[in-house]
């Protein structure tokens, strides 16, 4: 089964590059403590016993007894000491290892960063040098050190490691997964069996949670499987092994022209879904494909289209026989399971052509073959008169054959005196071979028969009769007939292959030209016109393109120009749109129409229909044009999809542009209003300092109010623009409250502000600036509604699964039923005896900011004493768990 032609040269090069280089084996773990080092040392010990020269390059035992015992059994290369900032750091002595030249070196912690001043900044670079020198290396690494996974790991563990190993190192290594269940690891951790570096202890509580460990483990397993799969693929490619090496299942369904084929396709789809495997559908084109009837071709095209819609990759490949074709395709696609149909053919057919199923099962080896029964009732194959006509050939063929035989006879008569009689027979080979090769089997046989008759009549004694005296001459006649048969068979086969190749080349050229034309279109209108023009040109038909509209299908493009369609055509077009099936002439629906309508299917559903008609009102399409039309429609659909996508992107860009303008406008207005205000505020303050006056106090107070108003307008605009940029960081609520109280001391001048927050309240993860604005607005609100002299209380409480931060005042409270409405923009509560200053934006901003951070706000009245209570609830997900105390000492 080693077919040298099928080796993949690139895979071979990759393998060759590995030759002479040391091999790397990596012990991959999900987390510290799974036992990678132990596993590596044990493995190394086995190699040592097997006579391999093993040294320990560097191993971190972390004082573990078992590990130390294992190291004792090895030869250890002493470390090189590097002095760095007063510390003495022991690094792997790469020169000593290179000089010692072992066969295998054990190097722990592949991701380690070397001390400054070492030869390479990273240990994996040391390892690469060892490998280059032809030394095999065993090493260990944890999954979070893999470069491409670093971000993902950091995102859920919230611990980012600086020391990473490039993925390319893993790709060239053999990977051994060292795996223990998370529960066991947590147990080992509790027993103190896991060494955690000093600087990592504070991350410990979070990192070693069961959910994290499970996720890490899954990532490690997946990465290991991925590496194995990739290496396996390389191996197969390099060695051209036609065995079963696929690490995942891959399904292949073989499609024929039979009506049962769609059933096979669906069965394969179900199988693929069940196995979560990729699948492909293939049709093997042999010379028999040329003899298919129109209906059969259409059936085949439909089946291929079905497979493609169901998500298969489809292919049509030409091959001498179905079995050959399938065998090659199975190996190329690395299919593990094949679905084929058992066709109910006659025993005679099977005898001549062999059963595909039997041959396949024998020829493919260890690939599972699913044979599904064919559908007998659907197999009523129409008589194919076209095929017969072709086999019998044209009368002119026979005339030419006869003329050539006559010419040979005349030539023979001229030569009969000078050459041997047997050689004269050879002359007749020329017309026989020519007829067989050019006109087919029957014309060849005709020529063979006529030649033998002519030879017999004109040359064989007794000449002038058809009797044969010498039995030797019978042989000559038989040879002529035999040559006719054999030659015509070979010629027919060659001609069939050439026809196939030529027709697919034509088709490919047409498709390529088509896609060039339609991708050049810049607008939807242009695209529709290009599709009509190209289809019209390629298939020599009139074309129209209709799109759906509320008043039925609407004509959008036509080549040659067409402005209206008959009612029956519109009905057919509508039906084709609604049912996603062809309709009109040449289909099975509304055949009275002169036009044939094919739906244009895109990923967003049916986009429109393409109509085709012939000038002479004949059948719009020949059957052999159907596959080409299907391909053209596919291309057109893709072009429409692409255009829709471009339009969406354009829309998104316009929205983006509008948002950008709006925020630019806002920030410039904000800036223009606030710059003078800033000057006024500061100047007033300075004036008050130099000559105090009541009027100046008024100016100051009003300027401050205006400043808050502008700030609120800007904040509200940010909330309404959506997507507030958050800068979430661990925040101490004591700081948040103290800052807000400090900044609102002007508006709460007459109030006594009390702060009552549980001393053990945990830190929270919020945007401190947004929270600050929430609190300021709540305090402002309290100062505005509660009478001067009443106290305002800020209370923080730990609830079972949240923190409640409340601002309580002794104002009028909130009218019943207004608790939710109060947070709406520009709501100001009626019923109060005097007009309160304010913009009505404050509470809306509180709500907008709080919700942007994932917090909730609620308003309520309280009774003892009467007043309002506004509460910001911080959910558990925003609360930081307690930090390990030892790290704070």
């Amino acid at each position, binding site marked *: 089964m080693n077919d040298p032609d099928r080796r993949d040269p690139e895979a071979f090069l990759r393998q060759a590059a590995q030759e002479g280089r040391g091999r790397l084996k990596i012990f991959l773990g999900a987390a510290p403590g799974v036992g990678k080092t132990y596993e590596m040392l044990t493995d190394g010990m086995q190699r040592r016993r097997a006579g391999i020269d093993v040294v320990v390059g560097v191993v971190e035992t972390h004082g573990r007894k078992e590990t130390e015992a294992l190291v004792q059994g090895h030869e250890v290369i002493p470390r090189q000491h590097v002095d760095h900032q007063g510390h003495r750091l022991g690094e792997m002595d790469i020169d000593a290892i290179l000089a010692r030249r072992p066969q295998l070196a054990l190097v722990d912690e592949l991701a380690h960063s070397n001390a400054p001043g070492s030869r390479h900044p990273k240990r994996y670079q040391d390892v690469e040098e060892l490998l280059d020198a032809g030394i095999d290396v065993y090493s260990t690494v944890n999954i979070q050190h893999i470069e491409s996974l670093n971000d993902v790991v950091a995102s859920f563990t919230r*611990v980012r490691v600086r020391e990473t190993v490039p993925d390319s190192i893993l790709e060239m290594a053999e990977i051994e997964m060292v795996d223990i269940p998370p529960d066991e690891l947590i147990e080992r951790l509790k027993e103190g069996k896991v060494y955690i570096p000093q600087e990592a202890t504070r991350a410990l509580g979070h990192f070693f949670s069961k959910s994290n460990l499970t996720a890490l483990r899954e990532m490690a397993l997946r990465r290991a499987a991925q590496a194995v799969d990739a290496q396996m693929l390389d191996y197969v490619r390099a060695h051209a092994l036609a065995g079963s090496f696929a690490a995942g299942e891959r399904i292949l369904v073989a499609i024929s022209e039979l009506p049962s084929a769609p059933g096979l396709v669906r069965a394969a789809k179900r199988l693929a879904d069940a196995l979560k495997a990729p699948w492909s559908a293939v049709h093997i084109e042999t010379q028999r494909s040329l003899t298919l009837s129109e209906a059969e071709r259409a059936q085949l095209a439909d089946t291929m289209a079905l497979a493609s819609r169901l998500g298969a990759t489809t292919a049509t490949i030409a091959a001498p026989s179905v079995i050959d074709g399938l065998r090659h395709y199975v190996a190329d696609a690395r299919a593990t399971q094949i679905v084929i149909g058992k066709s109910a053919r006659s025993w005679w057919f099977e005898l001549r052509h062999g059963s595909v199923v039997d041959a396949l099962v024998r020829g493919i080896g260890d690939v599972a073959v699913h044979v599904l029964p064919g559908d007998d009732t659907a197999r009523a194959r129409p008589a194919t008169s076209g095929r017969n006509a072709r086999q019998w050939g044209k009368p002119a063929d026979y005339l030419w054959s006869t003329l050539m035989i006559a010419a040979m006879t005349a030539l023979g008569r001229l030569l009969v005196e000078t050459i041997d009689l047997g050689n004269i027979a050879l002359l007749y080979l020329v017309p026989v071979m020519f007829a067989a090769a050019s006109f087919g089997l029957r014309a060849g046989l005709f020529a063979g028969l006529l030649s033998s008759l002519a030879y017999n009549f004109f040359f064989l004694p007794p000449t002038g009769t058809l009797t044969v005296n010498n039995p030797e001459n019978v042989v000559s006649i038989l040879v002529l007939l035999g040559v006719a048969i054999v030659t015509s068979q070979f010629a027919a086969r060659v001609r069939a292959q050439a026809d196939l190749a030529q027709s697919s080349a034509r088709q490919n050229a047409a498709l390529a030209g088509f896609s060039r034309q339609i991708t050049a279109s810049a607008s939807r209108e242009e695209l529709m016109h290009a599709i009509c023009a190209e289809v019209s040109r390629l298939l020599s038909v009139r074309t129209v393109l209709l799109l759906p509209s509320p008043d039925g299908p609407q004509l959008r493009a036509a080549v040659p120009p067409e402005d209206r369609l008959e009612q029956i055509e519109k009905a057919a077009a509508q039906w084709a749109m609604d049912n996603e099936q062809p309709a009109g002439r040449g289909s099975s629906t509304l055949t009275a129409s002169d036009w044939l309508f094919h739906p244009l299917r895109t990923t967003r559903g049916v986009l429109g229909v393409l109509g085709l008609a012939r000038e002479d009102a004949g059948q719009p399409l020949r059957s052999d044009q159907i596959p080409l039309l299907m391909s053209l429609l596919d291309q057109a659909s893709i072009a429409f999809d692409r255009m829709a996508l471009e339009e969406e992107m354009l829309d998104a860009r316009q929205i983006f542009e509008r948002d950008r303008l709006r925020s630019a406008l806002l920030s410039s207005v904000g800036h223009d209003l606030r710059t003078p205000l*800033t000057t006024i505020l500061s100047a007033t303050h300075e004036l008050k300092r130099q000559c105090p006056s009541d009027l100046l106090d008024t100016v100051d107070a009003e300027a401050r109010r205006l400043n808050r108003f502008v700030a609120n307008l800007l904040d509200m605009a940010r909330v309404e623009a959506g997507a507030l940029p958050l800068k979430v960081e661990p925040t*101490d609520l004591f700081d948040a409250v103290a*800052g807000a109280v400090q900044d609102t*001391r002007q508006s709460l001048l007459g109030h006594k502000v009390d702060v009552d927050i549980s001393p053990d309240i945990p830190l929270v993860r919020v945007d*401190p*600036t947004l929270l600050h604005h929430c609190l300021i607005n709540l305090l402002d609100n309290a100062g505005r509604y509660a009478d001067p002299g009443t106290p305002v209380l800020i209370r923080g409480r730990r609830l079972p699964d949240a923190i409640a931060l409340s601002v309580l005042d002794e104002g009028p409270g909130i009218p019943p039923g207004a608790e939710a409405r109060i947070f709406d923009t520009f709501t100001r509560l009626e019923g109060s005896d005097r007009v309160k200053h304010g913009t009505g934006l404050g509470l809306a901003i509180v709500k907008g900011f709080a919700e942007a951070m994932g917090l909730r706000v609620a308003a309520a009245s309280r009774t003892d004493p009467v007043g309002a209570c506004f509460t910001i609830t911080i959910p558990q997900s925003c609360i*930081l768990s307690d930090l390990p105390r030892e*790290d704070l*000492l």
Partner: protein
Amino acid sequence: MKTRHKVLIVDDEPHIRKLIHAALTRADYATVEAGTAREALALLKSERPDISLLDLGLPDRDGLELVPLFKRDSDTTLIIVSARDATDQKVAALDLGADDYLTKPFDTDELLARVRVALRNRMAKDGGAATVRAGDVEIDLLARTVTKVGHEVHLTPKEYAVLAQLAKFPGRVITHAQIMAHVWPNEHEHHVEYLRVLVRTLRQKLEDDPQRPQIIGNELGIGYRLRCITDADGEGRA
């Protein structure tokens, strides 16, 4: 004869410059003014100001680019003046070497207090005060002891490290990153939550009312500031 300290005012708004000039003149400082980055850099060389007040929103150059230039070309003490919501910009400027910041709109008293703190820290850099007082707390940076109303307060090494970092520049804002770089010098990744917890325990040991901290002030989204004695004097307005 007393020499007056010189302050460079860099702002593209002439009214703001005039205002700052008025306030500084009242407090007996000499001023020079620049409206563009180019003028500012020229004056920095020719006038050698003790203190520079820099607005980051200049017409001819990004203010953040100027910060390292100011620090490289002179030994001026650099105070950033910028708008309320430009927190990221302030942190960036401070981490680039700016010494302090002031948010617009500002009280002129606050401005003068910042300038005073800056001047005191300049002198301390030359002479160096070993003891720093904040409220009734005294921090002895040489003996590494902290007392409150004369009684020694026991701090953990990390707590002391945080406090010492603030006390080295009393009255000046120190960013989270700057503190953490000293408290956890060996770590690449810093986590603000640890700093927050340390500050909370520090306040419990040092503040009269930890709910209303008077000694270690929080600067929203930026860092912490030790409110030292002279600073508190300056702020004795509210």
